[in-house]
């Protein structure tokens, strides 16, 4: 069964002459337990797409279903890890309280909340830092807090919006592997938005390539690389290089070809 179904999603900003269509008939479906990565050129409507998919932004036409239910407001089975961890975490709450806060609103008992918070912080390796404020931690660790908050919420579907775009390359590799491990362990479904092609191929079962605005799906490329994946051995496979090139080719096909193939720097 598809846990996320986006059908013919259209969203535009403004009215009349000056109206700008951002999403132009987007179709994406993600099966239960799948890890789908979504790449697009920078400036395409990724954030708009994410906000529509998570019920934060009303759209013009089409539909979004999560677990078979039409999304009109953020569903309880959905968690999101935002790119901007320094804004999405609350700086005046400790790490543990940031993770705990959403659980209060799930109506859980105090004991159950404590168990979930402890487990989540342990699985991202932050239980030693539970009493600190987010801004006392490095960027990578702050994003771990955001991941822990999502884990404790126990969503069926986790949306990740360029979550590692503003951390350094080594931290990024660590967080990628952490994400893969948690995905395997918790049996979640993950839709992962990124602009890094290596990351998209390395993580996903399937890469969805978006066009520039007005955004639609250009192509879906299956990634039949073996799991568990490994930063060294997976990326050394000739198939990895081929997939990477293919994604790149699709990404730029039809759009003005860059004279120098960009290396997509980490941020």
């Amino acid at each position, binding site marked *: 069964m598809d846990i996320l179904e986006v059908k013919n999603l259209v969203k535009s900003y403004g009215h009349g002459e000056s109206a700008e269509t951002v999403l132009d008939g987007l179709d994406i479906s993600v099966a239960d337990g799948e890890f789908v990565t979504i790449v697009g050129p920078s400036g395409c409507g990724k954030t708009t797409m994410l*906000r529509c998919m*998570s019920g*934060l932004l009303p759209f013009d036409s089409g539909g979004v279903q999560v677990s078979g239910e039409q999304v009109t*407001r*953020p569903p*309880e089975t*959905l*968690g*999101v890890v*935002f790119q*901007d961890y*320094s*804004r*999405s*975490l*609350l*700086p*005046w709450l400790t790490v543990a309280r940031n993770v705990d*806060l*959403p659980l209060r*609103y*799930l109506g859980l008992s105090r004991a159950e909340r404590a168990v979930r918070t402890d487990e989540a912080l342990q699985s991202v390796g932050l239980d030693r830092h539970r009493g600190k*404020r*987010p*801004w*006392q*931690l490095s*960027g990578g660790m*702050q994003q771990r807090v955001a991941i822990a*908050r999502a884990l404790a*919420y126990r969503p069926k579907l986790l949306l990740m919006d360029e979550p590692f775009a503003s951390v350094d390359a080594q931290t990024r590799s660590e967080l990628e592997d952490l994400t893969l491990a948690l995905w395997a362990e918790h049996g979640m479904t993950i839709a992962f938005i990124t602009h890094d092609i290596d990351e998209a191929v390395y993580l996903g079962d399937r890469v969805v390539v978006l066009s520039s605005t007005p955004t639609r799906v250009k192509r879906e490329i299956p990634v039949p690389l073996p799991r568990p994946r490994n930063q060294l051995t997976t990326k050394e496979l000739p198939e990895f290089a081929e997939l990477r090139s293919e994604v790149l080719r699709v990404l730029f096909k039809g759009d003005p070809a860059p004279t120098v193939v960009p290396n997509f720097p980490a941020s």
Partner: protein
Amino acid sequence: MSRIHAWLRRLSPLLVIATVVAIWYLVSRSANSLFFPPLTDVLVSFRELWFSATLLDQALPSFIRAGAGFAIALVGGVVMGTAIGLSPLIRQLTTAQLEFLRSIPPVLLIPPSLLLLGTGTQMKIAVIALASVWPILLATIDGVRSVETVRLDSARVFGLGAAGRVRWVVLPTAMPRIWSGVRACVPIVFVVMVAADYYASSDGIGYMISQTATSFRFSEMWASVLLLGIFGAAVNLAVMRAGRWLDHTFGEFGVRAA
């Protein structure tokens, strides 16, 4: 050497105060003016007035009215400011009225309030609240509007309803700005408190000042002014300290430092 400097720096405000008091003492001692009695007389009056039941009879009512008016302004300003800040519709409907009302000089509110609410305590509290609500209201609107979308988005995604978002996201984010409004409203509270005491009062610090001044009891008048000054300085210090704590707890400095 640097320790001496540090001490000097810490002591220098006290030294300035001591100097001012000394000049006051020396100048007033030799002056023959009726209006400027010697400092020693003022201090004697100060002790007689404010270390006695007069403190409870005359000063306390003013401070209670000021406190009540300020509390109403704070709660009202934050509640209305939050509503206006969050809702573009309410904002659109109220902007013109707010601009009109806030540009009325606070003391001008007293005569019409006398007509509407009478001469009692109620009127004075209402006038103090009405005059001091504006800085808090405007600062709250500003602070509420400064909350980033991402912060509200993540709260919504993780199941926080409107009340939860206000409690956990909007108010803490707006807190430093709300407090800057509070700081701005403290002097207004004092001005209006004294002014309201001038009108139709039988007690209050402003009443004391006007009574003693018109009956040529100038050392008592100066003693009242002195009490007002000391009280004002103490309140200001408390508000500043609280502000520093709020800044430290809710300020975005941590975000910037990261």
